[in-house]
């Protein structure tokens, strides 16, 4: 198949049937559910250990009320992590490169934290708009700035994830195209480019994991402020 650079970012469809649902739900198949055995196999043990580890990490700063968010935050983290890592395989579609999906994840969750804060502790929530110890003449300007930063949070969350992944994938595509194109002409430069590509791949693996973690971490931070 002759690929353009847009093909990996297009929502997959087979004979007109959109496959986006499969691509979103497939990662779930990779995580077995805990069985009734006391000592299970290595895969399940590692999975459970990882889930406990992540949940503990995310929820330690939160107070008791915030622990209600444990399920959604951990499952979001696993979801994003798996989708990002699977997207690095060739010929795969990464749903998190779509801004629509990331905004659909970021916006409602951020809004939930905001509304929780405004509903349960409105004074404290609004109080976050003014950092402590600001000089009095700066207060009006600072409140406007903080409000802007508050309102831009969902946009930032979504766009951060999208941009990182899209940029990474695009870079991989471009550099591998360069390698392929240079191979018959200047093999030495092609070899250099492949080295760059290897390093970039390692970076992309790291970025995939970090971006998933950062998304969920920021959400938990916004939750901490507001709960």
């Amino acid at each position, binding site marked *: *198949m*002759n*690929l353009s650079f847009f093909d990996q970012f297009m929502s997959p469809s087979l004979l007109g049937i959109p496959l986006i649902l499969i691509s979103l739900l497939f990662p779930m198949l990779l995580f077995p559910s805990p069985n*009734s*055995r*006391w*000592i*299970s*196999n*290595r*895969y399940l*043990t*590692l999975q459970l*250990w990882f889930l406990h580890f992540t949940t503990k990490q995310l929820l330690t700063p939160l107070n008791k009320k915030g622990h209600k968010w444990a399920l959604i935050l951990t499952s979001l983290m696993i979801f994003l992590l798996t989708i990002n890592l699977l997207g*690095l*395989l*060739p*010929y795969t579609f990464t749903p998190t490169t779509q801004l629509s999906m990331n905004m659909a994840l970021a916006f409602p969750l951020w809004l939930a934290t905001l509304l929780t804060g405004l509903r349960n502790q409105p004074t404290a929530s609004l109080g976050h708009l003014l950092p402590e110890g600001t000089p009095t003449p700066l207060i009006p300007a600072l409140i406007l700035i903080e409000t802007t930063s508050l309102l831009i949070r969902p946009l930032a969350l979504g766009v951060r994830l999208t941009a990182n992944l899209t940029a990474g994938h695009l870079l*991989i*595509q471009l550099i*591998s*195209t360069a*390698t*392929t194109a240079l191979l018959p002409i200047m093999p030495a430069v092609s070899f250099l480019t*492949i080295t760059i*590509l*290897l390093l970039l*791949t*390692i970076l992309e*693996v790291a970025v995939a994991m970090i971006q998933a973690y950062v998304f969920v971490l920021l959400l938990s931070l916004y939750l901490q402020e507001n709960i």
Partner: protein
Amino acid sequence: MLSRLVLRAAPAALRALPPPPLAVGVLHATRQLHTTQQSLAPLPPLPEKGGEVRHGLIPEEFFQFLYPKTGVTGPYMLGTGLLLYFLSKEIYVVNHETVAAACILSVIIYGVKRFGGDVAAFADKLNEEKMAKALAVKNEAINSLQAAIDEEKKEQWRVEGRTYLFDAKRNNVAMLLEANYRERLMMVYNEVKKRLDYQVAMQTLKRQKEQEHMIQWVEKNVVQSITPQQQKESVAKCIMDLKALSKGAHAAL
């Protein structure tokens, strides 16, 4: 659970019943209900190792499947042939994704080869720790019970020695009683002796006094009985005795 009992008894019961009319329940009478005991515990044991896999992807069963017809190199020939077929017919087109695929696959394979053993050991360690915690509880219980048994045995041994203890105590008490008895016996003896001594002393005193009195009376009487005549005679005799004596003394000298 009761339903299981009913279901187990059902075939026998159904066979005991008279055969139902053909119009009704032919299927029910002929179908076997649960013939084996269905129980969830104990669970059948898990296999120790997963299925054998060659090159991390292809199960060993595939190689065994092809072995009778094509020998050892069969599957590899098949793989190479398929690959070359796809490449030459451009069913698989070599494009930039191929290079990207090569990179990511090499990264993945390197990661698995390098960290696979460590991750497996870590998972095994997690399971071992879980087992060790439970085993520790069990061993702790066994040890404490063993200690209790030893304590109990010691107590029983102590109980056996109880008779000696009682004997010693009994001897002690007997000795105390004996000593006390002897002491009182001594006291009685002393008291009696004191009284008897008193009586003896009284008697001695009385006799002494009687003697003295008698002597005095005799002396008084004798003195009274000495008449002046007798007194002169005795004095003259004494003088004569003295003269005789002095003569004797003079002669000695």
